[in-house]
Protein backbone atom coordinates (compact mmCIF):
# COMPACT_ATOMS: atom_id res chain seq x y z
CA UNK A 1 0.00 0.00 0.00
CA UNK A 2 2.80 2.30 0.98
CA UNK A 3 4.71 1.56 -2.22
CA UNK A 4 1.66 2.29 -4.35
CA UNK A 5 1.05 5.62 -2.65
CA UNK A 6 4.68 6.52 -3.23
CA UNK A 7 4.45 5.58 -6.87
CA UNK A 8 1.38 7.69 -7.36
CA UNK A 9 3.15 10.64 -5.79
CA UNK A 10 6.19 10.03 -7.98
CA UNK A 11 4.17 9.85 -11.18
CA UNK A 12 2.38 13.05 -10.18
CA UNK A 13 5.71 14.72 -9.57
CA UNK A 14 7.06 13.67 -12.94
CA UNK A 15 3.95 14.88 -14.71
CA UNK A 16 4.36 18.27 -13.01
CA UNK A 17 7.99 18.37 -14.07
CA UNK A 18 7.12 17.56 -17.67
CA UNK A 19 4.54 20.31 -17.64
CA UNK A 20 7.09 22.75 -16.36
CA UNK A 21 9.56 21.74 -19.08
CA UNK A 22 6.95 22.24 -21.79
CA UNK A 23 6.20 25.70 -20.41
CA UNK A 24 9.92 26.47 -20.39
CA UNK A 25 10.36 25.42 -24.02
CA UNK A 26 7.33 27.51 -25.02
CA UNK A 27 8.84 30.57 -23.35
CA UNK A 28 12.14 29.95 -25.14
CA UNK A 29 10.33 29.71 -28.47
CA UNK A 30 8.47 32.96 -27.85
CA UNK A 31 11.67 34.65 -26.78
CA UNK A 32 13.46 33.61 -29.96
CA UNK A 33 10.72 34.77 -32.32
CA UNK A 34 10.46 38.00 -30.36
CA UNK A 35 14.19 38.64 -30.36
CA UNK A 36 14.55 41.17 -33.16
CA UNK A 37 11.93 42.45 -35.52
CA UNK A 38 13.60 41.19 -38.63
CA UNK A 39 16.92 43.03 -38.99
CA UNK A 40 16.59 42.99 -42.77
CA UNK A 41 13.30 44.92 -42.53
CA UNK A 42 14.98 47.43 -40.25
CA UNK A 43 17.81 47.86 -42.73
CA UNK A 44 15.38 48.34 -45.63
CA UNK A 45 13.33 50.94 -43.75
CA UNK A 46 16.43 52.87 -42.68
CA UNK A 47 17.84 52.71 -46.20
CA UNK A 48 14.65 54.00 -47.85
CA UNK A 49 14.37 56.84 -45.33
CA UNK A 50 18.03 57.79 -45.73
CA UNK A 51 17.83 57.80 -49.52
CA UNK A 52 14.64 59.87 -49.51
CA UNK A 53 15.99 62.68 -47.30
CA UNK A 54 19.64 62.73 -48.39
CA UNK A 55 21.11 66.00 -49.66
CA UNK A 56 22.02 64.43 -53.02
CA UNK A 57 18.67 62.67 -53.50
CA UNK A 58 16.45 63.50 -56.48
CA UNK A 59 13.59 64.08 -54.06
CA UNK A 60 15.25 66.85 -52.03
CA UNK A 61 16.45 70.41 -52.56
CA UNK A 62 18.87 70.07 -49.65
CA UNK A 63 19.30 67.66 -46.77
CA UNK A 64 15.99 66.88 -45.04
CA UNK A 65 14.08 69.25 -47.37
CA UNK A 66 11.77 67.36 -49.74
CA UNK A 67 10.59 69.07 -52.90
CA UNK A 68 6.79 69.05 -53.01
CA UNK A 69 6.55 68.12 -56.69
CA UNK A 70 9.12 65.35 -56.34
CA UNK A 71 7.05 63.94 -53.50
CA UNK A 72 3.97 64.06 -55.69
CA UNK A 73 5.79 62.13 -58.42
CA UNK A 74 6.96 59.35 -56.14
CA UNK A 75 5.76 55.87 -56.91
CA UNK A 76 6.74 52.35 -55.92
CA UNK A 77 9.21 51.76 -58.74
CA UNK A 78 10.97 55.10 -58.14
CA UNK A 79 11.36 54.13 -54.50
CA UNK A 80 12.85 50.78 -55.54
CA UNK A 81 15.34 52.51 -57.83
CA UNK A 82 16.34 54.92 -55.07
CA UNK A 83 16.68 52.19 -52.46
CA UNK A 84 17.37 48.67 -53.74
CA UNK A 85 16.67 47.06 -50.35
CA UNK A 86 12.99 47.86 -50.94
CA UNK A 87 12.86 45.66 -54.04
CA UNK A 88 10.08 43.12 -53.79
CA UNK A 89 9.05 44.36 -50.36
CA UNK A 90 5.79 45.78 -49.11
CA UNK A 91 6.22 49.35 -47.91
CA UNK A 92 4.33 52.44 -46.86
CA UNK A 93 5.71 55.97 -46.98
CA UNK A 94 3.68 58.72 -45.33
CA UNK A 95 4.04 62.39 -44.44
CA UNK A 96 2.31 63.30 -41.17
CA UNK A 97 0.18 60.19 -41.59
CA UNK A 98 -0.94 60.98 -45.13
CA UNK A 99 0.23 58.14 -47.40
CA UNK A 100 2.57 59.15 -50.22
CA UNK A 101 3.45 55.74 -51.65
CA UNK A 102 1.93 52.45 -50.62
CA UNK A 103 2.54 48.96 -51.88
CA UNK A 104 1.14 45.86 -50.28
CA UNK A 105 0.39 45.26 -46.60
CA UNK A 106 3.29 46.72 -44.68
CA UNK A 107 1.58 46.51 -41.31
CA UNK A 108 3.94 44.07 -39.62
CA UNK A 109 7.12 45.69 -40.86
CA UNK A 110 9.61 47.99 -39.18
CA UNK A 111 8.87 51.73 -39.02
CA UNK A 112 11.43 54.51 -39.22
CA UNK A 113 10.59 58.19 -38.66
CA UNK A 114 12.42 61.26 -39.92
CA UNK A 115 11.85 64.98 -39.42
CA UNK A 116 11.70 66.84 -42.71
CA UNK A 117 10.34 69.98 -44.33
CA UNK A 118 8.39 69.92 -47.57
CA UNK A 119 9.34 72.83 -49.83
CA UNK A 120 6.97 74.24 -52.41
CA UNK A 121 7.38 77.48 -54.29
CA UNK A 122 4.98 80.33 -55.00
CA UNK A 123 4.33 81.44 -58.53
CA UNK A 124 7.10 83.61 -59.99
CA UNK A 125 7.25 87.18 -58.71
CA UNK A 126 8.63 89.69 -61.17
CA UNK A 127 10.20 93.01 -60.22
CA UNK A 128 11.68 95.54 -62.58
CA UNK A 129 14.50 97.96 -62.11
CA UNK A 130 14.22 101.12 -64.12
CA UNK A 131 17.85 101.85 -64.84
CA UNK A 132 17.43 105.54 -65.46
CA UNK A 133 15.79 105.97 -62.06
CA UNK A 134 18.42 103.92 -60.28
CA UNK A 135 15.87 101.92 -58.29
CA UNK A 136 16.62 98.69 -56.51
CA UNK A 137 14.78 95.46 -55.87
CA UNK A 138 14.66 93.90 -52.43
CA UNK A 139 14.29 90.13 -52.42
CA UNK A 140 13.02 88.75 -49.11
CA UNK A 141 14.63 86.07 -46.96
CA UNK A 142 14.35 82.46 -47.94
CA UNK A 143 15.00 82.94 -51.65
CA UNK A 144 18.21 81.37 -52.90
CA UNK A 145 17.70 81.62 -56.66
CA UNK A 146 16.68 84.50 -58.93
CA UNK A 147 16.64 85.07 -62.69
CA UNK A 148 18.02 88.39 -63.90
CA UNK A 149 17.24 89.64 -67.40
CA UNK A 150 19.29 92.64 -68.42
CA UNK A 151 17.85 94.66 -71.28
CA UNK A 152 19.90 97.77 -71.89
CA UNK A 153 18.38 100.64 -73.77
CA UNK A 154 19.94 101.91 -76.95
CA UNK A 155 23.34 103.59 -76.42
CA UNK A 156 23.47 102.34 -72.85
CA UNK A 157 25.87 100.05 -71.16
CA UNK A 158 24.96 98.20 -67.99
CA UNK A 159 28.08 96.65 -66.60
CA UNK A 160 27.39 95.29 -63.17
CA UNK A 161 24.57 93.67 -61.28
CA UNK A 162 25.07 93.48 -57.54
CA UNK A 163 23.12 91.32 -55.11
CA UNK A 164 23.54 92.08 -51.43
CA UNK A 165 26.75 94.00 -52.08
CA UNK A 166 28.26 91.09 -53.99
CA UNK A 167 28.86 91.36 -57.76
CA UNK A 168 26.88 88.57 -59.41
CA UNK A 169 26.94 89.65 -63.06
CA UNK A 170 29.67 91.62 -64.71
CA UNK A 171 30.69 92.34 -68.26
CA UNK A 172 33.03 95.20 -69.07
CA UNK A 173 31.55 95.48 -72.53
CA UNK A 174 28.02 95.71 -71.22
CA UNK A 175 25.52 93.11 -70.10
CA UNK A 176 22.67 91.95 -72.26
CA UNK A 177 21.80 88.66 -70.80
CA UNK A 178 19.48 86.35 -69.01
CA UNK A 179 21.16 84.68 -66.09
CA UNK A 180 20.43 82.82 -62.88
CA UNK A 181 22.08 84.08 -59.72
CA UNK A 182 22.47 82.48 -56.33
CA UNK A 183 21.51 84.41 -53.24
CA UNK A 184 21.88 83.91 -49.51
CA UNK A 185 18.84 82.30 -48.01
CA UNK A 186 19.40 83.72 -44.55
CA UNK A 187 18.95 87.41 -45.22
CA UNK A 188 17.10 89.66 -47.63
CA UNK A 189 19.02 90.71 -50.77
CA UNK A 190 19.00 94.04 -52.51
CA UNK A 191 19.69 93.95 -56.23
CA UNK A 192 21.46 97.03 -57.59
CA UNK A 193 22.64 98.00 -61.03
CA UNK A 194 26.02 99.46 -61.82
CA UNK A 195 25.73 101.51 -64.97
CA UNK A 196 27.06 104.72 -66.37
CA UNK A 197 25.05 107.86 -65.82
CA UNK A 198 22.21 108.52 -68.22
CA UNK A 199 21.88 104.83 -68.94
CA UNK A 200 18.46 103.53 -69.81
CA UNK A 201 16.97 100.13 -70.01
CA UNK A 202 15.23 97.60 -67.84
CA UNK A 203 16.48 94.87 -65.59
CA UNK A 204 13.88 92.33 -64.59
CA UNK A 205 14.37 90.16 -61.53
CA UNK A 206 12.19 87.08 -61.20
CA UNK A 207 12.09 84.87 -58.11
CA UNK A 208 9.84 82.37 -56.37
CA UNK A 209 9.37 82.36 -52.64
CA UNK A 210 9.64 78.96 -51.01
CA UNK A 211 7.06 77.75 -48.54
CA UNK A 212 8.45 75.23 -46.06
CA UNK A 213 6.16 73.04 -44.01
CA UNK A 214 7.52 70.87 -41.22
CA UNK A 215 6.44 67.26 -41.49
CA UNK A 216 7.24 63.83 -40.06
CA UNK A 217 8.19 61.25 -42.68
CA UNK A 218 7.21 57.68 -41.78
CA UNK A 219 8.68 54.73 -43.66
CA UNK A 220 7.42 51.19 -42.96
CA UNK A 221 8.94 48.24 -44.82
CA UNK A 222 8.01 44.56 -44.64
CA UNK A 223 10.28 42.48 -46.86
Amino acid at each position, binding site marked *: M*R*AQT*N*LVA*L*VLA*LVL*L*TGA*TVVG*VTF*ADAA*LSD*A*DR*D*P*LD*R*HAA*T*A*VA*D*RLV*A*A*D*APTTVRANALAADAVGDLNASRVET*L*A*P*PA*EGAAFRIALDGEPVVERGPAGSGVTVRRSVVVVSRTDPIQRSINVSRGSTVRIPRGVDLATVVVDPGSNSTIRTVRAGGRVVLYDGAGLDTNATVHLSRYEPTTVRIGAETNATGRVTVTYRRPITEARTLTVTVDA
Partner: protein
Amino acid sequence: MTDRGLAPVVGKGMEALIVLLYVASLVAVLHGGVLPEYRTAAAAEVSERTLSTTAERVEASIPPRASVVDVTRTVPLPDTIDRATYRIRAVDGGLVLDHPDPGLSGRVPLALPDRVVAVEGTWESDDPAAVRIRGDADRVRVILT
Protein backbone atom coordinates in the same frame (compact mmCIF):
# COMPACT_ATOMS: atom_id res chain seq x y z
CA MET B 1 7.25 -9.09 8.75
CA THR B 2 9.90 -9.65 6.13
CA ASP B 3 7.48 -8.39 3.49
CA ARG B 4 7.11 -5.15 5.35
CA GLY B 5 10.88 -4.72 5.62
CA LEU B 6 11.47 -5.31 1.91
CA ALA B 7 8.73 -3.06 0.56
CA PRO B 8 10.44 0.32 1.28
CA VAL B 9 13.71 -0.81 -0.34
CA VAL B 10 11.99 -2.07 -3.46
CA GLY B 11 9.78 1.02 -3.52
CA LYS B 12 12.72 3.43 -3.33
CA GLY B 13 14.69 1.43 -5.87
CA MET B 14 11.82 1.54 -8.34
CA GLU B 15 11.37 5.26 -7.73
CA ALA B 16 15.02 5.88 -8.48
CA LEU B 17 14.81 3.79 -11.64
CA ILE B 18 11.70 5.61 -12.84
CA VAL B 19 13.28 9.00 -12.24
CA LEU B 20 16.44 7.94 -14.08
CA LEU B 21 14.45 6.67 -17.06
CA TYR B 22 12.43 9.87 -17.11
CA VAL B 23 15.45 12.17 -17.07
CA ALA B 24 17.21 10.10 -19.76
CA SER B 25 14.19 10.18 -22.08
CA LEU B 26 13.67 13.92 -21.51
CA VAL B 27 17.30 14.67 -22.35
CA ALA B 28 17.07 12.46 -25.43
CA VAL B 29 13.93 14.22 -26.66
CA LEU B 30 15.39 17.67 -26.11
CA HIS B 31 18.70 16.91 -27.75
CA GLY B 32 17.18 15.05 -30.66
CA GLY B 33 14.30 17.36 -31.48
CA VAL B 34 14.34 20.70 -29.78
CA LEU B 35 17.99 21.68 -29.39
CA PRO B 36 19.26 21.39 -32.98
CA GLU B 37 16.26 23.42 -34.19
CA TYR B 38 17.02 26.19 -31.75
CA ARG B 39 20.67 26.16 -32.65
CA THR B 40 20.00 26.74 -36.33
CA ALA B 41 17.25 29.26 -35.60
CA ALA B 42 19.61 31.28 -33.42
CA ALA B 43 22.37 31.01 -36.01
CA ALA B 44 20.00 32.20 -38.74
CA GLU B 45 19.20 35.22 -36.58
CA VAL B 46 22.90 35.98 -36.19
CA SER B 47 23.42 35.62 -39.92
CA GLU B 48 20.60 38.05 -40.77
CA ARG B 49 21.71 40.48 -38.13
CA THR B 50 25.31 40.40 -39.35
CA LEU B 51 24.23 41.12 -42.91
CA SER B 52 21.97 44.00 -42.01
CA THR B 53 24.38 45.57 -39.53
CA THR B 54 27.31 45.49 -41.93
CA ALA B 55 25.11 46.87 -44.72
CA GLU B 56 24.06 49.75 -42.49
CA ARG B 57 27.69 50.31 -41.53
CA VAL B 58 28.82 50.51 -45.15
CA GLU B 59 25.94 52.82 -46.10
CA ALA B 60 26.63 55.13 -43.17
CA SER B 61 30.33 55.35 -44.01
CA ILE B 62 29.78 57.20 -47.28
CA PRO B 63 30.79 60.79 -46.55
CA PRO B 64 28.96 63.80 -47.98
CA ARG B 65 29.91 64.98 -51.45
CA ALA B 66 33.49 66.29 -51.49
CA SER B 67 36.17 66.82 -54.08
CA VAL B 68 38.46 64.25 -52.49
CA VAL B 69 37.19 61.23 -50.63
CA ASP B 70 39.41 58.73 -48.83
CA VAL B 71 37.79 57.21 -45.77
CA THR B 72 38.48 53.92 -44.02
CA ARG B 73 36.18 52.50 -41.35
CA THR B 74 36.63 49.25 -39.46
CA VAL B 75 33.67 46.91 -39.49
CA PRO B 76 33.21 44.50 -36.57
CA LEU B 77 32.22 41.00 -37.75
CA PRO B 78 31.49 37.94 -35.61
CA ASP B 79 34.31 35.45 -36.15
CA THR B 80 32.00 32.51 -36.71
CA ILE B 81 28.34 31.78 -37.19
CA ASP B 82 27.34 28.40 -35.80
CA ARG B 83 31.03 27.56 -35.20
CA ALA B 84 31.95 27.99 -38.89
CA THR B 85 33.84 30.83 -40.55
CA TYR B 86 32.17 32.54 -43.47
CA ARG B 87 32.79 35.19 -46.06
CA ILE B 88 31.04 38.38 -47.10
CA ARG B 89 31.41 39.42 -50.73
CA ALA B 90 30.32 42.50 -52.61
CA VAL B 91 28.22 41.33 -55.53
CA ASP B 92 26.17 43.42 -57.91
CA GLY B 93 25.40 46.29 -55.57
CA GLY B 94 24.77 44.12 -52.53
CA LEU B 95 26.51 42.11 -49.83
CA VAL B 96 26.41 38.31 -50.02
CA LEU B 97 27.16 36.16 -46.99
CA ASP B 98 28.72 32.83 -48.04
CA HIS B 99 28.39 30.25 -45.30
CA PRO B 100 29.09 26.49 -45.50
CA ASP B 101 25.50 25.93 -44.41
CA PRO B 102 23.34 27.25 -47.27
CA GLY B 103 20.52 27.99 -44.83
CA LEU B 104 22.73 30.55 -43.15
CA SER B 105 23.81 32.33 -46.33
CA GLY B 106 22.01 35.40 -47.58
CA ARG B 107 22.09 38.57 -49.56
CA VAL B 108 21.23 42.16 -48.76
CA PRO B 109 21.07 44.94 -51.38
CA LEU B 110 22.87 48.17 -50.54
CA ALA B 111 21.24 51.61 -50.77
CA LEU B 112 23.97 53.96 -51.98
CA PRO B 113 23.87 57.41 -53.58
CA ASP B 114 24.15 57.62 -57.37
CA ARG B 115 27.75 58.81 -57.26
CA VAL B 116 28.91 55.42 -55.93
CA VAL B 117 29.97 53.65 -59.10
CA ALA B 118 31.41 50.40 -57.74
CA VAL B 119 31.28 48.20 -54.68
CA GLU B 120 33.90 45.48 -54.62
CA GLY B 121 35.95 43.26 -52.33
CA THR B 122 35.59 40.42 -49.85
CA TRP B 123 35.71 40.02 -46.10
CA GLU B 124 36.87 36.87 -44.36
CA SER B 125 35.11 36.51 -41.04
CA ASP B 126 38.25 35.76 -39.06
CA ASP B 127 40.30 38.62 -40.56
CA PRO B 128 39.87 42.26 -39.46
CA ALA B 129 37.36 43.86 -41.79
CA ALA B 130 37.32 47.44 -43.02
CA VAL B 131 35.48 49.43 -45.65
CA ARG B 132 37.46 51.88 -47.76
CA ILE B 133 35.77 54.66 -49.69
CA ARG B 134 37.73 56.53 -52.33
CA GLY B 135 36.86 58.92 -55.08
CA ASP B 136 35.98 62.46 -55.98
CA ALA B 137 32.85 64.57 -56.17
CA ASP B 138 31.24 62.54 -58.95
CA ARG B 139 32.65 59.04 -58.70
CA VAL B 140 33.08 57.11 -55.51
CA ARG B 141 34.18 53.52 -55.04
CA VAL B 142 33.53 51.30 -52.03
CA ILE B 143 36.10 48.59 -51.34
CA LEU B 144 35.81 45.83 -48.74
CA THR B 145 39.25 44.97 -47.38
